[in-house]
């Protein structure tokens, strides 16, 4: 187990460096001089600009800049904005909002997706099964920003059940954005659960379990479901990682001040340090979640052993 974790961590290192380097290089290529952009009506003197360039390593070649950035990361330094605010402070402030939204979406998609998938998979070809298949196909076809606006218009404005935007009303204001954000994954979870359950219900060990007279609930719950959940757990874990990295579109529509909206604003205002910092944090979370999911396999499926 320990060796497996070590190996996986080692494998994650090049992925981390590769992904962050790609983003870093892209941001490096953004045209325009950020220091010049700081100028207001009165231009900053050349010497002051030189000091600023030196402070943000802007005169170094790409690889050196990246190396210095990673060097800072090791000590927990995510860089600072051109206004001198540490990026870590921004992440600390915005991340809890995104985490709440992600958690709400996660609960929504997990509970409803599993429920729909199990109901559909237990009776293949039934009305419930067809209902789930048809409705999920429709949901997956509607782009998230269309869904977001329609939900906002209908449930927020016309019916008035939910707040339209912002997070003033605590957890309650997260419900509508979470439903929009989780809708796509909900479809995958429902379908994955259904397919997996249908396949497992046909297997020999289920016939054996039924033949030895186990009650239906135990056959389904203990034997079929537990085996069917492995791909679903993989998806859920990876998806939580994705959700935590911030949802640009959903946060934008519902005006939720999380990391996704922050990145979007930062791209517009050329605050590259914020962009790189938040994307880096997102990549870290994604890699960690993948590792956790892999380790969690062993708990669900005793046949999997890590040597």
């Amino acid at each position: 187990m320990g060796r497996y974790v070590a190996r996986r961590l080692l494998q994650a290192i090049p992925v981390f460096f590769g992904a962050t380097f790609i983003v870093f290089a892209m941001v490096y290529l953004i045209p325009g001089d950020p220091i010049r952009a700081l100028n207001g009506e009165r231009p900053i003197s050349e010497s002051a600009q030189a000091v600023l360039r030196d402070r943000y390593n802007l005169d170094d070649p790409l690889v050196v800049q990246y190396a210095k950035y990673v060097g800072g990361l090791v000590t927990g330094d995510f860089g600072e904005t051109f206004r001198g605010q540490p990026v870590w402070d921004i992440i600390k402030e915005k991340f809890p909002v995104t985490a709440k939204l992600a958690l709400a979406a996660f609960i929504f998609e997990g509970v409803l997706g599993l429920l729909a998938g199990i109901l559909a998979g237990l009776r293949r070809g039934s009305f419930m099964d067809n209902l789930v298949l048809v409705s999920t196909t429709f949901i997956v076809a509607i782009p998230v920003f269309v869904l977001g606006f329609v939900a906002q218009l209908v449930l927020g404005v016309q019916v008035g059940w939910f707040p339209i935007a912002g997070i003033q009303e605590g957890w309650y204001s997260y419900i509508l954005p979470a439903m929009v954000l989780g809708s796509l994954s909900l479809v995958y979870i429902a379908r994955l659960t259904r397919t997996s359950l249908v396949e497992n219900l046909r297997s020999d060990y289920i016939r054996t379990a039924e033949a030895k007279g186990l009650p239906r609930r135990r056959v389904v719950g203990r034997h079929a479901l537990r085996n069917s959940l492995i791909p679903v757990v993989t998806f859920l874990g990876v998806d939580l990682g994705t959700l935590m990295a911030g949802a640009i579109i959903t946060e934008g529509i519902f005006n939720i001040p999380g990391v996704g909206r922050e990145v979007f604003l930062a791209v517009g205002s050329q605050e590259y340090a914020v962009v790189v910092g938040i994307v880096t944090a997102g990549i870290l979370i994604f890699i960690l979640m993948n590792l956790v999911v892999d380790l969690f396999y062993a708990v669900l499926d005793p046949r999997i052993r890590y040597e």
Partner: protein
Amino acid sequence: MSDQRPAGGADTLEPDDEEAARQEDLLLHAASTQPAAGALSAATAAEGGVSEYQASLWGDAWRQLRRKPLFLIAAGLLVLFVAIALAPGVFAQVCNSCAEFANQDPRSPANFADLSRSVETPSAQHWFGFDIQGRDYFTRVLYGTRVSLIIGFLVVGVDVVIALILGCIAGFYGRVFDSIIGRGADIWFALPTTLAGLVFLSVLDNRGLFQVSAVLIFLGWPTLMRLMRSSVLAGKEADYVQAARALGASDWRILRVHILPNGIAPVIVYATISVGIIVSAEAALSFLGVGLQLPSISWGLMIADSQGRLLSSPHLLLFPGAFLSVFVLCFIVLGDQLRDALDPRLR
């Protein structure tokens, strides 16, 4: 190969009809996909009236598909979208007053504006109403089809080629190639798609069809590559591949003749669904303001423009949104149906 038709299919046909239909299919299919050997054997079969035939995976799939109403509806929609993309002007004529209005500027019917009619709601004369500039919305939505279709097919087409090449190399030659390509794909998977698209596109000053497609191609290849790789891995160990190798076939011939035709089905299925996903992604990027730029006509841009007027004129959101959703739905249904038809275990 056995003459037995798989369970399901045309139980209702009389045996004779069934036989005739089968022959017909066979000719159709053989002519389209396997010009040399297939057509020959089909011709002999037809001439001699022999009941034996060679059922290929694609032939079987096609015979199944053409009896599925869902597939036919989706395929019909696709044909309609392609036709609209080719000649949006012709379809704009369907709504007479829309066409008359828009044709006042023959150079660009979709851009003719009458500000006095700004954000007018849909009416019998102008089915989709007017946008903020007073342009006929029906015409604009129709003209928006072209961009989506081009980006969808271009991106997925190039990605499939990349996936085929890299997937074959990784799966067939393994070892170092597999590690390099596999780790590369891992890196790409770790990039959050919307975020990466946002950052990459904001680098570019001038964003047209080509630039947006390039970024989507850049971000989209890993899933298809992995599918291809696992197909090649599974195919590599098959007996017929070993036999071909023993007979001295070259790597290129083994890949081309034996592994690819047998392993490409999952890639085709996912590629079909991908067209929908990519079109949706293009709209999302345009919506965020980093995709296509005006004066391009794109559903994503229209939806982005409608953002501030959601309450007063929801039709600005609903029409392009509906077209976009139906377009994506069409490809998802096609992919689903293809998968069912191509996977013998699901029959």
